[in-house]
């Protein structure tokens, strides 16, 4: 089933000499259960594109249809409703409310969507625990590390069980282990709960869980460039690694295995 359809979308910022065409004539579709990865150089238009899909920016030209509704044509009030119920957005720079604790930042979107306070609280708790924030969920954003804020922002995006999750660099501030866990979380949500996930990232490892990659350059869709080098797989966590730069290795039964961390190396039990 088609969830999202982006048709001939263009976005121009500013006007005259300083005008920037950030997104230019982009079209694609996303189905339920699909994970789409969007990659491309810095400044190529990825965040701009994602913001338009999320209803945070209006395209200069083109249409964006979510579940049959063209969100470029609806009223502000309708758009706000779609954003709240159908879309979960993980911001590249977190965008947490500074005067609310991590817990409250997640809880309030549930309450906005009409959940009873106790229900929202319980749900927020569960999500934060899933993201390993059980000890830090009552801290303010300024008292959290970068990766902790990023995880609060991911929990918030999942709060209303949105049909579509839009995540902008969701692992940019996470170590390899937490990054991997977040990827698996998105993967399960898409495959087990029939939802669509669009991830903007430069992290090659996300290719492991995505169904398809869209490469954007200068605001336009291009065919993806070839992978820079052959990657090998960590036999414990399944992560793809660049063998040239991986210090954790072990010889076993005449074969060399590479690991993402010492932790995985120690956990490794080779098959007979």
């Amino acid at each position: 089933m088609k969830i999202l359809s982006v048709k001939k979308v263009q976005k121009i910022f500013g006007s005259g000499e300083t005008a920037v065409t950030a997104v230019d004539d982009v079209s694609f579709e996303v189905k339920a259960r699909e994970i789409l990865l969007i990659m491309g150089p810095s400044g190529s238009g990825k965040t701009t594109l994602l913001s338009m899909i999320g209803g945070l920016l209006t395209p200069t030209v083109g249409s964006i249809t979510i579940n049959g509704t063209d969100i470029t044509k609806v009223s502000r009030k309708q758009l706000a409703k779609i954003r709240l119920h159908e879309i979960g957005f993980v911001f590249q720079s977190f965008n947490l409310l500074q005067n609310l604790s991590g817990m409250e930042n997640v809880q309030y979107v549930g309450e906005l969507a009409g959940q009873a306070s106790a229900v929202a609280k319980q749900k927020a708790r569960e999500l934060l625990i899933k993201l390993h924030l059980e000890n830090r969920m009552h801290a303010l954003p300024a008292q959290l590390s970068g990766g902790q804020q990023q995880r609060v922002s991911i929990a918030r995006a999942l709060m209303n069980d949105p049909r579509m999750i839009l995540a902008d660099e969701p692992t940019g501030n996470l170590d390899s282990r937490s990054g991997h866990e977040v990827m698996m979380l998105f993967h399960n949500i898409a495959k087990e709960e029939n939802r669509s996930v669009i991830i903007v990232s430069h992290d090659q490892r996300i290719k492991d869980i995505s169904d398809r990659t869209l490469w954007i350059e200068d605001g336009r869709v291009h065919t993806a460039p070839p992978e820079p080098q052959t990657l090998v797989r960590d036999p414990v966590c399944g992560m793809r690694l660049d063998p040239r730069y991986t210090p954790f290795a072990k010889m076993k039964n005449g074969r060399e295995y590479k690991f993402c961390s010492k932790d995985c190396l120690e956990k490794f039990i080779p098959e007979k």
Partner: protein
Amino acid sequence: MPIELQSIIKTYRMGSENFNALDGITATIKDGEFIAIMGPSGSGKSTLANIIGGLDTPSSGKIFVNKEDISRAWDRALSHYRNKKVGFVFQTFNLQPHYTALENVMLPLIFSKVRLRARKKKAVACLEAVGLGDRMKHKPGELSGGQRQRVSIARSLANNPEIIIADEPTGNLDSKRSTEIIALLKKLREEKNITLIIITHDMNIAHQADRVIYIQDGKIKKAR
């Protein structure tokens, strides 16, 4: 400049409990060394970077920079250190939203005796070095995430620092840009003998460092 950390502890109060974000860090960083700091999210890396950069003070312990104890330094000496000796790249950029990229990079030079025209020239050169020659008049809100990150890197270079402390400087960059930025920092280090401290989750970067310090739960777990 050599840096020596002696039993650094940083305690935060959370409700009625105290917890140590840094729990006894002792380490020596040699003049001109390139150190990578790695560790899980929340392990204390940024807290440590802030303390080394003079942006925060430890609850106990000492830091000697060039044999001078900056944890005991009075405000004037500390701000001299922060503004003249250190170039700091923030994990979350910390740019001034109302100023253009160029103005943001020029800001740290206000306290130097450099004339306006020279300040501008220097800031332009730093922005060009990070590939932002065509975005100098944009404000942070008009820049992409990676572009903002590069403004923050350009700003850290503007005052010709002797120590560069970069907290996740490539977290928002594609691999090509990331490689360029690290090459730029390494070149500066070779030319000017800058001490380079980079916090990163990226193995490719850690691999290029002279030494890697792994932090877990506020302690040094191991060092390579």
